[in-house]
């Protein structure tokens, strides 16, 4: 038995940090209805800030700590300000924006702090004392546990025994009524964001000495806290904390057994596995906070688009014209552009095919998938094995890849599609991270870090080995995919997707089976992504896990939202941006700022479903300004436009 005690001590230590993080996530979700996917990035950013203040500039911990907490508070206030106008918007907006903020903080950390793996000095002394017969316990472990318990206790006391707590619970219970009772709802939101960010700062500072100061790693480690947060159904602070302790201990005990390495990185994947399993098991018992309180004023808040959708015949014709012209231009490109440059264009076009699945999922069906590149990876690695290693035909390999993706997307989609978009986003994130940590790390699956190799295929007697031929193939595939998407969007299936977004309740009472429709869309998009991945794999010739990770799926989502998530053109623009990002010869001074620009662009433009494309075509330019306008004036505007509308109609008749 005594052999387990050291692992239990380590487990309690890490579990108590996850507990802090889980409480921070639950706090803002409970009060504001925003699930902060960017929480790990807040923790990471604050940890780097502390490292800069303390380790680099030599400020003592007693000064550096309050300074970092202040930084965290400012971040919290900024987050609050950004999320406030998103209340009552379509449910995927806060998810996308919090993911964009994650990317903003990551990019900012790279620019400000360098972002390479830094060693951080521990906050507490790392010396140990001995308990009983030879159990060594670190002072840092005890200190961390005490801090975490103290902060958790403080939060509990705040919520239970102060007027702040009473107001918060009133707002949690019913946002609108809380406001009517004279509670300043905005101040409550601000307080919860500030508290949550400060928790995040503590988490980051306490984690960094053991986890290392690494931008990606720290951000992902905090995602460990999402599983206990879901265990507490995103609303129970004590359950979330307890769950985090259990998770920390199981992870630590697992590391004792799994040192043989036969099951990939099992202890690293355990939190994601727990998140995934919890989402499946808790299933229908999970509810969204926002969905419970939103309907009261949703009718007022929901701005109605001023354009006449896809019914506007002239606009459809214009879209077709633009599409055809773009395709013709793409066909003519090889006249001017040659050799490897065409290869980059081909890569962008294939990326566009995968991006199109995000347009359909997010822009049309209102679902957020953070696993599209995991599905692409399934296609790519299947091609790597069957076509590359075993010499089967490319088409056979691609087909097998698509077939493998279907049961997996069913597995991800089935439990979560009965629920709201948040849980699908969480499930796809867990799935992508599981693929990264359990499947794509395995040498026998992906060839490890160096990856697999595949040669460019021969199709219908044409060798696609040269960049020219492959470019032609990829624009034909992209053009076909866009045409199919356009036809589907304008027909009955497009209308089905639209009615599920506009009013799921009305759609169901007309006979629409929400779950089946959403599942079908999810599976088809997974299959197309797998096909795109197969193409991408055989194009790149070297297929490495790093190109199909969660991070790439996230980047894809942000690029599509930036470009215009509701438009087919958005997918093409996303492909072009991706290509530009990977073009050689872009000076470092420009290249280094691209991720930050994309992420900030999503935060600013994210509310417009037409994104950058809208900016270019000049439609809905007011969206950008509207982000910074207080919500009350927006409501007035909406009502105003309706009244005018009524008058106009009367004068018509």
């Amino acid at each position, binding site marked *: 038995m005594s052999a387990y005690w050291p692992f239990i001590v380590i487990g309690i230590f890490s579990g108590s940090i996850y507990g802090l993080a889980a409480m921070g996530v639950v706090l803002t979700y409970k009060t504001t209805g925003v699930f902060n996917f960017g929480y790990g990035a807040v923790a990471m950013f604050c940890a780097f800030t502390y490292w800069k203040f303390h380790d680099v500039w030599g400020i003592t911990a007693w000064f550096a700590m309050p300074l970092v907490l202040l930084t965290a508070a400012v971040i919290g206030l900024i987050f609050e300000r950004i999320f406030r106008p998103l209340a009552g918007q379509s449910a995927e907006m806060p998810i996308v924006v919090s993911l964009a903020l994650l990317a903003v903080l990551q990019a900012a950390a790279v620019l400000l702090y360098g972002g390479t793996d830094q060693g951080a000095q521990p906050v507490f002394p790392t010396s140990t004392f001995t308990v009983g017969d030879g159990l060594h316990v670190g002072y840092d472990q005890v200190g961390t546990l005490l801090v975490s318990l103290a902060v958790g206790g403080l939060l509990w006391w705040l919520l239970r025994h102060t007027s702040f707590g009473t107001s918060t619970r009133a707002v949690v219970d019913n946002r609108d009524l809380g406001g009517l009772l004279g509670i300043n709802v905005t101040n409550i939101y601000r307080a919860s964001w500030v508290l949550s960010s400060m928790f995040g700062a503590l988490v980051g500072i306490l984690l960094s000495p053991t986890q290392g100061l690494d931008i990606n790693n720290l951000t992902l480690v905090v995602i460990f806290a999402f599983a206990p947060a879901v265990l507490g159904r995103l609303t129970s602070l004590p359950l979330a904390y307890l769950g985090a302790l259990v998770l920390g201990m199981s992870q630590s005990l697992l590391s004792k057994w799994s040192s043989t390495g036969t099951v990939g990185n099992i202890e690293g994947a355990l939190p994601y596995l727990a998140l995934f399993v919890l989402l499946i098991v808790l299933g229908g018992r999970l509810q969204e906070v926002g969905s419970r309180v939103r309907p009261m004023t949703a*009718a007022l808040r*929901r701005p*109605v*688009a001023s354009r*006449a*959708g896809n*019914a506007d015949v002239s606009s459809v014709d214009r879209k077709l014209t633009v599409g055809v012209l773009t395709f013709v231009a793409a066909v003519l490109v090889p006249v001017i552009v040659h050799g490897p440059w065409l290869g980059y264009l081909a890569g962008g076009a294939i990326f566009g095919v995968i991006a199109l699945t995000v347009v359909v999922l997010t822009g049309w069906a209102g679902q957020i998938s953070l696993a599209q590149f995991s599905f692409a990876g399934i296609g790519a690695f299947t091609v790597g094995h069957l076509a590359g290693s075993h010499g089967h035909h490319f088409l056979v390999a691609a087909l097998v890849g698509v077939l493998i993706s279907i049961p997996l997307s069913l597995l991800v989609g089935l439990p979560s599609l009965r629920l709201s978009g948040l849980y699908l986003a969480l499930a796809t994130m867990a799935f992508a991270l599981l693929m990264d940590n359990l499947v794509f790390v395995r040498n026998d699956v992906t060839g490890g870090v160096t990856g697999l190799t595949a040669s460019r295929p021969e199709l219908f007697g044409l060798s696609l080995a040269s960049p020219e031929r492959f470019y032609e193939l990829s624009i034909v595939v992209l053009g076909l995919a866009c045409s199919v998407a356009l036809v589907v969007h304008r*027909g*009955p*299936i497009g*209308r*089905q997707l*639209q*009615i599920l*977004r*506009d*009013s799921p*309740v*009305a*759609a*169901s*009472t*007309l*006979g*629409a*089976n*929400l779950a089946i429709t959403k599942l079908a869309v999810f599976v088809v998009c997974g299959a197309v992504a797998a096909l795109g991945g197969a193409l991408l794999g055989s194009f790149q010739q070297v297929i490495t896990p790093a190109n199909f990770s969660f991070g790439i799926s996230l980047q894809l989502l942000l690029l599509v939202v930036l470009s215009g998530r509701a438009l087919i053109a958005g997918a093409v623009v996303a492909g072009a941006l991706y290509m530009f990002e990977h073009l050689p010869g872009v000076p470092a001074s420009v290249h280094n700022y691209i991720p930050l620009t994309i992420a900030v662009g999503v935060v600013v433009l994210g509310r417009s479903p037409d994104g950058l494309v809208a900016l270019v075509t000049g439609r809905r330019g007011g969206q950008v300004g509207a982000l910074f306008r207080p919500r009350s004036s927006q409501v007035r505007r909406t009502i105003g*436009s*309706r009244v005018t*509308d*009524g008058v106009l*109609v009367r004068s*018509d*008749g």
Partner: protein
Amino acid sequence: MGEQGPLLGASGISVRFGGLQALDTVDLQVQPDRITGLIGPNGAGKTTMFNVLTGLVAPAQGQVVLDGTEITGWAPHRRARAGIARTFQRLELFSRMTVEQNLLAAWETGHRGGGLGRGKHECRRRVADVSEMLGLGPLAERLAGQLPTGQGRLVELGRALCTDPRVLLLDEPGSGLDAAETERLCEILERLTHDGGADRLAILLVEHDMPLVMRVCDVITVLDFGKGIANGTPEQIRANPIVQAAYLGDADVA
């Protein structure tokens, strides 16, 4: 098919929301070719009853039967496909679609095959018929979310009709309508049940506009605080002292 029973029947329906008994062993019968009124003061449980009938709220007790088949546990979409359509008190339009698209989507959703292939012509024809009957033709290209409430209610009615229902549940179709629109609604309702007898359409109507209810309904059920307190013809209901007491002081009766 030849049974005498109601087309849609609910018996002993009870629903609790926390401490509130929203419905307490309510019985309701909806006959084909008839307009059944469901009235009662605010908070009497009328909309909750609609939600139970369409499957949006599961009753704690009681049964819902459609044409002899028990459908109590059925999901909303399955009931819709079996022939129950409804409108909403708080409009649930597909606000970012045009009026015509709202109707097309309704037909496609309510019919097998969803307007792909051969269904396309049938779909267009039905949508055109419904548009004409409700006078929605001039609004076809307007965005549903930009319509005033009265016209929005007509679109919801049209959408429900496009699914070719056997039972139509209308939740306050008259509110927000001006006098001319109300008159038109009355004519439409009467035409749907009495003239087009071949459809065997049954209508259940929740409405606060008493003159409208008294004019179009064949039978009326009255709810008060979640309980059914009366059931009968408009004349019987008008003369019923219990109903008068329940409505006493309620401006709606005036």
